[in-house]
């Protein structure tokens, strides 16, 4: 039926162009995700993924459990699928493609179930299907009842071989799918998005796919890149870094949500892609035997990541001392939890101003909200000639008229008093 006829019958129909490459990408993405359940995954184009699960039944707790997990996972990623189970891969593929969610675990019932399939399940050329229909065959059972050499002569040996493979009479070797070395998946959004938070829904599907892929490879990532494709053709790349490699989908979702919350889209976005290039080996987590009372070390890293995701990586830092005479260089930013050297300094204020503030000099006494009383000093610091930031200063601890203690210095070259720190 043509598009206009369809629209005439159902005016509320939404028509989309079929995108075969996106379908193939989705199929490959699902195959990579499904590898967390079994290493033996095969593809049957255009739209079937075959999983050989006999080796995984014990680990995942039985067939029903695996089916439930697969179904849930696919639904969470936004795919609708029909699942079927059979002793042979071809039969399982036929059941699923015919939309029948049959569960056959022994060979006896297999023959019955295959016979009940309609002839269209064969998925061969339309001419052959027409010819089969022309001779009055409706189900595969009817076809199997016909003499074998006659079938081979009329429709080709391949048809007969396929039937035998489906019923387990002939071997059916498959080439198994190997997952790609890097993860790169993309979703075209149904409608353009102007608020970053609305991207979370699509991003979550990609993150679930990523988590499955990482589970299949027993790996974790420390860095994700979100690429947003804009209407005008440009892309925005948002990189999210983690403190430790992980493959937890919930954790990824949390970080992405925090980051998207602080991003303002300059143009509407019509597609989102997630890319992860460095896959690091990550063994499974060992659970402790006894419950911890003050939180596990993992929680601390999670906190740092959450804070960094929303505020920026540079906004969260530790402190370290640096062996330097110049006061402003003696305190440096460091990574949290970095090991520190123990260094000795003289009396130093708790707070250092970002830049020394010039203060007035009244008479011979420096003045900062009233005359300052110099208490301790001078501590002469002259240093830094080697990197053009040399200083020559006399530092004093002083008390203001408001009775708080400050750290001031007098510039030896050129004079002038400056306030550099507060004792608090």
């Amino acid at each position, binding site marked *: 039926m043509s598009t206009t006829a369809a629209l005439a019958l159902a005016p509320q129909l939404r028509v989309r162009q079929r995108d075969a490459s996106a379908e193939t990408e989705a199929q490959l993405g699902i195959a990579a995700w499904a590898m967390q359940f079994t290493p033996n995954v095969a593809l049957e184009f255009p739209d079937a993924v075959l999983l050989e699960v006999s080796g995984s039944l014990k680990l995942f707790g039985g067939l029903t459990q695996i089916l439930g997990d697969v179904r849930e996972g696919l639904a969470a990623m936004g795919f609708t699928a029909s699942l079927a189970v059979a002793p042979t891969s071809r039969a399982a593929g036929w059941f699923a493609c015919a939309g029948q969610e049959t569960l056959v675990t022994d060979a006896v019932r297999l023959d019955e179930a295959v016979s009940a399939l309609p002839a269209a399940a064969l998925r061969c050329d339309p001419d052959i299907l027409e010819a089969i229909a022309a001779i009055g065959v409706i189900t595969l059972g009817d076809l199997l009842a016909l003499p074998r050499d006659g079938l081979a002569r009329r429709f080709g040996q391949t048809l007969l071989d396929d039937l035998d493979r489906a019923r387990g009479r002939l071997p059916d070797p498959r080439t198994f799918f190997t997952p790609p070395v890097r993860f790169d998946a993309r979703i075209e959004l149904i409608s353009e998005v102007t608020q970053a938070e609305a991207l979370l829904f699509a991003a979550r599907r990609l993150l679930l796919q990523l988590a499955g892929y990482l589970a299949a490879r027993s790996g974790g990532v420390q860095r994700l890149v979100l690429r947003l494709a804009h209407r005008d053709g440009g892309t925005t790349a948002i990189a999210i870094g983690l403190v430790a490699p992980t493959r937890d989908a919930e954790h990824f979702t949390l970080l992405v949500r925090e980051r998207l919350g602080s991003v303002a889209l300059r143009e509407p976005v019509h597609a989102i892609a997630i890319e992860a290039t460095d896959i690091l080996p990550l063994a499974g987590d060992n659970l402790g035997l006894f419950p911890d009372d003050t939180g596990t070390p993992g*929680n601390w890293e*999670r906190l740092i990541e959450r*804070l960094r995701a929303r505020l920026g990586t540079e906004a969260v830092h*530790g402190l370290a001392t640096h062996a330097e005479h110049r006061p402003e260089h003696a305190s440096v930013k460091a990574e949290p939890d970095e090991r520190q050297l123990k260094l*000795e300094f*003289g009396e130093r204020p708790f707070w250092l101003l970002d830049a020394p503030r010039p203060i007035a000099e009244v008479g011979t006494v420096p003045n900062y909200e009233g005359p300052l009383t110099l208490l301790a000093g001078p501590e002469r610091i002259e240093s830094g000639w080697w990197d053009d930031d040399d200083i020559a200063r006399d530092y004093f601890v002083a008390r203001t008229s408001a*009775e708080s*203690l400050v750290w001031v210095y007098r510039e030896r070259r050129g004079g002038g008093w400056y306030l550099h720190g507060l004792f*608090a």
Partner: protein
Amino acid sequence: MISIASNASPIPALAHPALWRGSELARVSVPSLPTGFPALDAELPGKGWPTGSLTEILPARVGIGELRLLGPALAGLSAAGKRLVWIDPPHRPYAPALAAAGIELARLVIVRTRTDRETLWALEQALDSRTCGAVLAWPSAVKYTELRRLQLAAEDSRALAVLFRPQQATVESSPAALRIGLAIAAGGLAVHILKRRGAPLERAILISSTSFHSHAVDCSSPAGTATRSAAARLATA
């Protein structure tokens, strides 16, 4: 005639520990952190900084000594391996001074935020994670509802949660369990306990400058002798 000796009650049932009398300080269920200043410890319920509830410190001005007041407790926490998180401090914290005060720098994390909303969010995240020993924050303005929320977050966390607020906030009501105002007094710092669980305290506690600086001194090092002489000069000045 019954002569009443010391605090013994004439009715023995009234001495039951579950009964609180108006003149007593509240009993705390979570252990408190000793402040390091005995005069202050004596006046706080639990004999120290409360953990698991919000504390507000309202100094008369920034840099008056509010951080040195917390210094011994923070040093104790970091030495015990607990983590310290400071959110949006007013100036750059100076590492050598903190190290000299006994704070393990490896345990300290500074968080820089741009708005009050981010400060309060980061504070709540740090408390919810239950991995911090102490969280200090410097928001510029907080509403009562936000304080209530932080108080609830602090209850689960068992951490020392301190908010530094400007002195104007003294008149605002707050659900924090402990509120302390700081002002300069002759010879040291005057600590006014504005609110505590228990009977109110009218007088201010004076913490002298000498007791401040004695905590910052490491007596075995040569730099320590320098600081000690500086401290001696400061005390006499």
